[in-house]
């Protein structure tokens, strides 16, 4: 049995192709069921995010399996194979394992180390588990990948530091204020970037959010976009009062000169009696007089500062890639050792049964000659022969379980099968040749 992965990602396919082969939540159970029916062991997991669509399954023949999965993706998503095939990649066995572990660790992401991907891998597994299309191999593989993702994050700095301006602003706010719950936010200007930052702050339960804009309609529109949490301050007259009341201020106006002067902020600082004030100035030209950042308890970050933070974090993350790759390599080797040991089990069992049968047959044949022995002596003879068989089997068992790759396991198993005429029905039971690529319509999937 081989592990097989076929898919597209941001590395291989443009967004138009990725959009076409994305699996919607509604269609996912049908796709999983179709894939599981076609796989060697009835196992399939589909990982579908905005950056990738990957199918993990099992197959006896990798080449045929890849072909079948490509056909399946083409037919299920109604994309021609000629259009899809150049963007598809496939990996088997150790490469597939390493790929999933790299994905879970965030090493294969568009933004290296992004934290969301581990949750998406977990969701993909959960969906497959709910659809009952996971079995011993994929269960183990995906649980292992969760542990790898967690290990990479805890042992390396790969996931640390925000790598987008809005997340950098939110991370800074958390580092200043701890919990953001209930922290009043003031938006000066109603630009797209300030909206995005405010949304990230809202996700951390920050608020209430107050919006100040020269145009009431703009402020109202943004207030509506932010889910009705915001209130609108119509005009600039109230800004001093609002500045003193807010903990976090995001400014993004189109004003040609700073609207928040040092004197204004100094006044707010005195009113706030030393409570920290975090100013995020994402306007160009700047909205906040730069010298305001020199005031105690005032933390001022403009767009260049935030971009600098992002660049530092990106650079720090890339410095952690080698450590993360080492963790992935180590865990891949450990998983493959487990997988090969598991593959060798039927041969080991058959070998033991064969030896035990020979031992019993010989003891039965010699029974008349042993009839003069006392029951204790007979038990000792039985014990000695059993121990001899166990010792004879110890080394081959260990060697078989320690084999490094699938082909070696198969070759050694075949050799042992021939040498000892093993009965290995369990190895052959329930096999098929791989995903058949049955059209989803025929499998009951929605069109």
């Amino acid at each position, binding site marked *: 049995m081989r592990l097989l992965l076929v898919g597209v990602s941001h590395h291989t396919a443009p967004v138009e192709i990725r959009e076409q082969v994305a699996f919607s939540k509604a269609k996912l159970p049908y796709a999983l069921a179709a894939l599981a029916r076609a796989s060697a062991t009835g196992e399939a997991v589909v990982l579908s995010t905005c950056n990738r669509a990957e199918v993990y399954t099992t197959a006896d023949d990798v080449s045929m399996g890849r072909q079948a999965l490509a056909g399946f993706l083409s037919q299920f998503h109604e994309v021609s194979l000629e259009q899809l095939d150049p963007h598809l990649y496939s990996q088997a066995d150790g490469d597939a394992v390493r790929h999933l572990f790299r994905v879970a660790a965030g090493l294969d992401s568009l933004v290296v180390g992004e934290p969301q991907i581990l949750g998406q891998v977990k969701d993909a597994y959960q969906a497959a588990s709910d659809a009952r299309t996971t079995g011993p191999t994929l269960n183990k593989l995906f649980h292992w990948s969760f542990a790898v993702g967690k290990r990479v994050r*805890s*042992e390396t*700095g790969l996931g*640390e*530091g925000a790598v987008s301006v809005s997340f950098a602003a939110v991370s*800074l706010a*958390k*580092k*200043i*204020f*701890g*919990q953001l719950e209930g922290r009043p936010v003031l938006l000066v200007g109603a630009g797209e970037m300030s909206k995005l930052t405010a949304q990230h702050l809202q996700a951390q339960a920050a608020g209430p959010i107050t919006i100040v804009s020269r145009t009431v309609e703009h402020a109202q529109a943004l207030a509506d976009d932010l889910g009705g949490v915001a209130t609108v301050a119509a005009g600039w007259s109230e800004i001093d009062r609002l500045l003193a009341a807010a903990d976090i201020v995001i400014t993004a106006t189109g004003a040609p000169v700073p609207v928040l002067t040092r004197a204004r902020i100094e006044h707010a600082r005195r009113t*706030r*009696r*030393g*409570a*920290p004030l975090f100013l995020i100035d994402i306007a160009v030209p700047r909205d906040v007089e730069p010298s305001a*950042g020199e005031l*105690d*308890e005032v*933390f001022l*970050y403009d767009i260049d*500062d935030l971009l*600098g*933070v992002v660049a*530092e974090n990106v650079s720090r993350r890339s410095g952690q890639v080698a450590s993360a790759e080492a963790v992935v390599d180590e865990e891949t080797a450990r998983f493959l050792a487990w997988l090969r040991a598991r593959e060798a089990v039927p041969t080991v069992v058959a070998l033991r049964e064969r030896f035990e049968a020979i031992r019993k047959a010989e003891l039965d044949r010699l029974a008349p000659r042993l009839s003069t022995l006392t029951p204790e002596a007979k038990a000792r003879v039985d014990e000695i022969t059993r121990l001899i068989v166990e010792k004879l089997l110890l080394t081959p068992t260990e060697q078989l379980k320690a084999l490094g790759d699938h082909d070696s396991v198969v070759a050694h198993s075949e050799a042992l099968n021939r040498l000892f005429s093993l009965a290995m029905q369990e190895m052959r039971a329930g096999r098929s040749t791989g995903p058949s690529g049955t059209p989803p319509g025929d499998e009951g999937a929605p069109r």
Partner: protein
Amino acid sequence: MTRLALLLYAAAAAAYLWHFVYRHPATGRAATALLAAAAVSHTFVLGMHTMLVGHMPFVGSSNAVSAFVWLLGLSYLYTEMTTDERAMGAFVAPLLVVLQIIPTFGAGVVARPALLETPLFVFHVTSLLFSYAAFALACVLGITFLLLFKEIKAKHLGFFYARLPSLQVLDAMNVRAVTIGWVFLTIGVIVGLFWVATARVASPDDARVQAMSVLDPKIFVALVSWCVYSFHLYARRAIGWSGKRSAWLSTLGFAIVLLNLLPVGFFFTRSHNFY
């Protein structure tokens, strides 16, 4: 056994520092376990000394330092358990090691003079040691606050930014530690005043008792530290001196406490030189 406690404190300090730099979770857990083992062995040492001389071995500067280290270790472990925050260990544990060297290689324990055999004295010393432990924690929190504050202000978010909790958490923990320390310091000073009054009557010829006045360096510096911490709490409530100023005040306060505990306690006092 005292040396074993010192060794365990040193091992814990190394582990905390390693964990702080490399952020390896297992090393962090090992650091906590080592510090707990150090505190247990130190408790055993103090218990043995108590059995040996018949009272808690808090008398004299060397023993006071040992008791201070013990209380600080326990207070820190309690803080770590209640806040789930291990970063401070990298600052507290090395301080424990440096201070524990004094009792490990200093004077041993001997029976206390009859003058000190009173519950008021035990209460006085215990309260002050609790307050010093709390002030030490406040100082560490203040220093870490300043380090993080500096990084955020300078816009180079690096070493401390990735390792320390938020400014808000550090500030809140700092004021909590200062408040606890101030309460114990106040109780310790008031009980000390009562004790001096009774001691003056009981031992009119004892030069140490007669030296117990505001003019004695030990008492004077203790009162200065009380003034600093009182101002710290007043300024925070009345004029909004939180954050950076609060951190500086707790650092200054503990510098005065250390001054009183070590050079003044060992060399300058005329009223507290019992050994």
